[in-house]
């Protein structure tokens, strides 16, 4: 097992493509995406029940090395500032297979 960092990002589903671009620009070729995520935050309630994805979020999980964390955060911060959302970083062990 090797120590890694877990980055969790919840952002408006309309921003998914931009977020993926940012991850790939930081050489992060591994990420997991969960769509149709609901929630509530500074920008109000996103209960999804709508004809467009306007009121739904996406949850993105990225496992990466410690040194890759800062570039991703710097890349994501302007996105979060403009469109809202959250980003959490926590520790984990990666099972080597």
């Amino acid at each position, binding site marked *: 097992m090797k120590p890694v960092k877990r980055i969790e990002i919840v952002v408006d589903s309309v921003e998914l493509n931009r977020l993926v671009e940012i991850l790939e620009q930081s050489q992060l070729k591994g990420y997991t995406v969960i769509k149709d995520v609901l929630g509530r935050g500074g920008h*109000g309630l996103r209960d*999804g*029940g*709508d*004809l*467009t994805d*306007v*009121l739904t979020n996406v949850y993105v999980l990225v496992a990466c090395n410690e040194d890759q964390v800062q570039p991703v955060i710097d890349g994501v911060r302007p996105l979060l500032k403009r469109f809202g959302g959250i980003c959490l970083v926590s520790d984990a062990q990666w099972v080597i297979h």
Partner: protein
Amino acid sequence: MDIDTILSNALNPPVLFFFLGVAAVLLKSDLEIPQPLPKLFSLYLLLVIGFKGGMELHHGGFNTQVLLTFIAAITAAIAVPVASFFILRIKLDVYNAAAIAASYGSVSAVTFVTATSLLQQLAVPYDGYMVAALALMESPAIVAGVLLVRLYANKQEKGIDWPEVLREAFLNGSVVLLVGSLLIGLVASDSAEKSLQPFTQGIFYGVLTFFLLDMGLLAARRIKDLTKTGPFLIGFGILAPLVNAVIAILIAKLIGMGEGNALLFAVLCASASYIAVPAAMRLSVPEANPSLYVSMALAITFPFNIIFGIPLYLQLIRIIGV
């Protein structure tokens, strides 16, 4: 004001099921039409009205009347958002004013379709090219909205990503499906038309009815956002459609549209978008609050139009004598 046209419109199954949807939410019932079924219905409706519009255009043909209608449609799709923006600026910041103005400058395909089904019931003819007018009026308001933000928002936003905005405005899912189906209807053979008939004609009214049950649920769920919108915007959500419709009817009389086309043109001007514009605004004007412009279009203007608006505008058209 002839009450029974409103009544006969309100007693149509689509409108009645809209009421049922609203009632279910107000009664806190757990009745729910889960995702992605609402999208299935809206895709089906866009495909069918586009295809049927194309087929009628194929029989119809092009003349100055059609051209005049298209010019009127595009002008309205630009004039309405600009006018609405300045009215809304009385009370709102630039971003929200522009987003709401873009919604009201654009159109609601479901309102258009509900109007065509009323015309069919009253056996009032209308032309296929009105669907082309619908397609023409989807996008300009989005560009107008982004431009208005660019001009009047003080903070120096790094330039507008024009390719992104234009793609959002002219190539969003609704426009591509509507225009695509219209073109396919134009070239489709009569035998193809016949074999598609049970799908495009037969179950159409039933799917529309099922969809309006869903619209009732969606609209009623947005009502709770209206507490934050405040009286000014609720007033705008009702007066804007009325004013736009009256102006549209006058223009229709001016260029000599038939009764059916005049109603559809009025409904296009009076309806607000809750599918194409919100998706575009989220991307290009993220500062605007979606629960504002979505709840106004879905919980005020859409119900107003299908319950009172449509029969009222028909009444006006008959009084003014188009």
